[in-house]
């Protein structure tokens, strides 16, 4: 029982983790992209469609990443080149993504999907309990952890990360030092888009292998909240994602145990938990002020 619960927690947490790590990089560069939900749902539908047409789950994943990047490029053009309001543009991206995905996905409603191949690590996967939980997952679960490790390393241990954080904390100084603020931000936004697309592909290819309209169901927004929860530190995103993964599968397991609680209350728990967590984190001024990128959401216009 416990093993089964843990397995569902992992699958629920993985898309949140991938999307949140991507957005964390974007926000570290000083850009707030509220379009995670829209990029994610586009990744879900394109990933499913391509996997379905080609019969290859991997191709589907690649296509989803490209779709997420394409959406984020649109966002980048508006907020970086046209200096459009980041909040409103992110919302536009979400509205557009939900609409486009509905239109593309109409042909795929009710079509059975294909499962991503599971990656069984030999020997280790045969250990009781530990084996199935840690070493019998699909490739994307392992990838999500690799992603966190790489992002954490790059952000705090490499020159690239230093430049990225400099751009996010003080774009004026970074510009004066000769770094191209817009180029760094553009790359960060594309990375965020790729991650959101990947997270979407996980939903439609691994979490529930099918296409359902609006299947992201606010996960993109929860990923955004996770970035705040983590106070912009990659390792804390893992904690947050798994906490939220656990809350969101509570519904399934509580129903199996036949608690006398309305299912709608259980379904609303992830959203209520998000609010609760945001309050707890934000109330702690010291924690948030230290790590919040100082230029978050502020547009940069190079004076020529």
């Amino acid at each position: 029982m416990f093993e089964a619960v843990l397995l569902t927690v992992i699958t629920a947490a993985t898309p949140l983790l991938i999307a949140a790590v991507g957005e964390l990089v974007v926000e570290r560069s000083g850009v707030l992209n509220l379009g995670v939900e829209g990029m994610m749902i586009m990744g879900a539908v394109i990933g499913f469609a391509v996997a379905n047409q080609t019969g290859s789950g991997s191709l589907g994943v690649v296509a989803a990443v490209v779709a997420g990047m394409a959406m984020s490029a649109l966002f980048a053009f508006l907020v970086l080149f046209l200096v459009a309001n980041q909040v409103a543009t992110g919302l536009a991206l979400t509205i557009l993504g939900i609409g486009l995905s509905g239109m593309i996905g109409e042909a795929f409603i009710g079509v059975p999907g294909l499962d991503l191949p599971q990656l069984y690590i030999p020997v280790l996967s045969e250990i009781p309990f530990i084996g199935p939980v840690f070493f019998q997952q699909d490739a994307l679960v392992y990838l999500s952890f690799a992603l966190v490790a790489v992002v954490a390393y790059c952000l705090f241990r490499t020159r690239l990360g230093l430049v990225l954080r400099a751009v996010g904390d003080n774009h004026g100084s970074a510009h004066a030092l000769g770094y191209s603020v817009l180029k760094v931000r553009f790359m960060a936004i594309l990375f965020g888009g790729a991650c959101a697309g990947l997270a979407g592909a996980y939903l439609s290819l691994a979490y529930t292998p099918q296409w359902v309209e609006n299947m992201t169901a606010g996960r993109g927004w929860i990923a955004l909240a996770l970035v705040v929860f983590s106070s912009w530190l990659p390792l804390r995103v893992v904690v947050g994602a798994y906490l939220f993964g656990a809350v969101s599968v509570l519904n399934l397991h509580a129903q199996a145990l036949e608690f006398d609680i309305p299912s709608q209350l259980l379904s609303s728990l992830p959203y209520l938990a998000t609010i609760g967590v945001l309050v707890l984190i934000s109330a702690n001024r010291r924690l948030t002020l230290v790590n919040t990128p100082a230029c978050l959401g502020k547009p940069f216009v190079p004076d020529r």
Partner: protein
Amino acid sequence: MRIELVKRKEHSRTMALLSPLIAVALTALSAAILFSITGHNPLIGLYKFFIEPLTQQWSLEATIDKATPLILIGCGLAVCYLSNNWNIGAEGQFVVGALFGSALPILFPSFENVITLPLMLLFGAIGGALWALIPALLKTRFNTNEILTSLMLVYVAGLLLDYLVRGPWRDPDGYNFPESRIFSDAATLPEVFGGAMSLSAPITIIIAIVLAIVLAKTLKGFEIRVMGESPRAGSFAGFSAKRLTLFSFAIAGALAGLAGTMEVSGALNQLLPSISPGYGFTAIIVAFLGRLNPIGIIIAGFVLALSYIGGEGVQSAMGVSNEIASVIQGLLLFFVLACDTLILYRIRMVSRRVPTGETSHV
């Protein structure tokens, strides 16, 4: 050749008026391309989508019905956005307002008299305002990001509605269908102008005009605009950012809640598991297309309402997915935001050979 943005010395008034029009034109162009890609005649598609709804009486009436909640919610959101409060949870405030407004006819169906309807509208506005005050209070008290909290409450509100219509508020004589009892006549918003529209339409227009005057002519309107553009300057004038956050959220919530109550009372006549085709989100587009000005929002509300009716039109006439409506709505917001750049910046073509350093300091 390179394209460059050059900051204007001051806002361009012409562009402030032209930019929404350019955005609509670009959206129509994109819609034409979208029709072509999906294998339909773009001209017929555009006609069916944007023009035909205006040519028949029934579709014109349907457009007014859809425009009404969009305008009302959009007006409230404009107050929030002008004062730099990012309320994106109007969809939830709409739903909770509808729940508060419906409590009277559902729980006390025999309470039928002249004050039934005014009380419902009042409760609706209060319900929406209370729901909106949650993210506002969290923002002022705990410094919580209001974008995320207001959005999360949309999902909670939807689930609350679902719970009520499937559980305690289900119609006892309704054969177990997930819907509430049908409202009595006393709880139904009457139609006006010979049945052409619900009373909600004139109420909405009056509120929009009042709000336009408040924003343009009163101290409160000045406070809202100052705090949005320069909170520091505003605080020197003695305005409180926190109080304004609470105020703007309460207004937006009240208007969304009122819209929700008028929708269930006037259009649906009962509560259903889903009572809104995304009005709260579409109203965000309405607010921006209307340039956060109530009069502009009235026009923008009609444009977006057209996209709902037009979407249904192209679906039935040409077999295009009616999702095309939400794609077009999303594109419209993109173009509106992109064209707003023209108000502050001028686009200039720069020849590569000229060193940029010399041209900028003229």
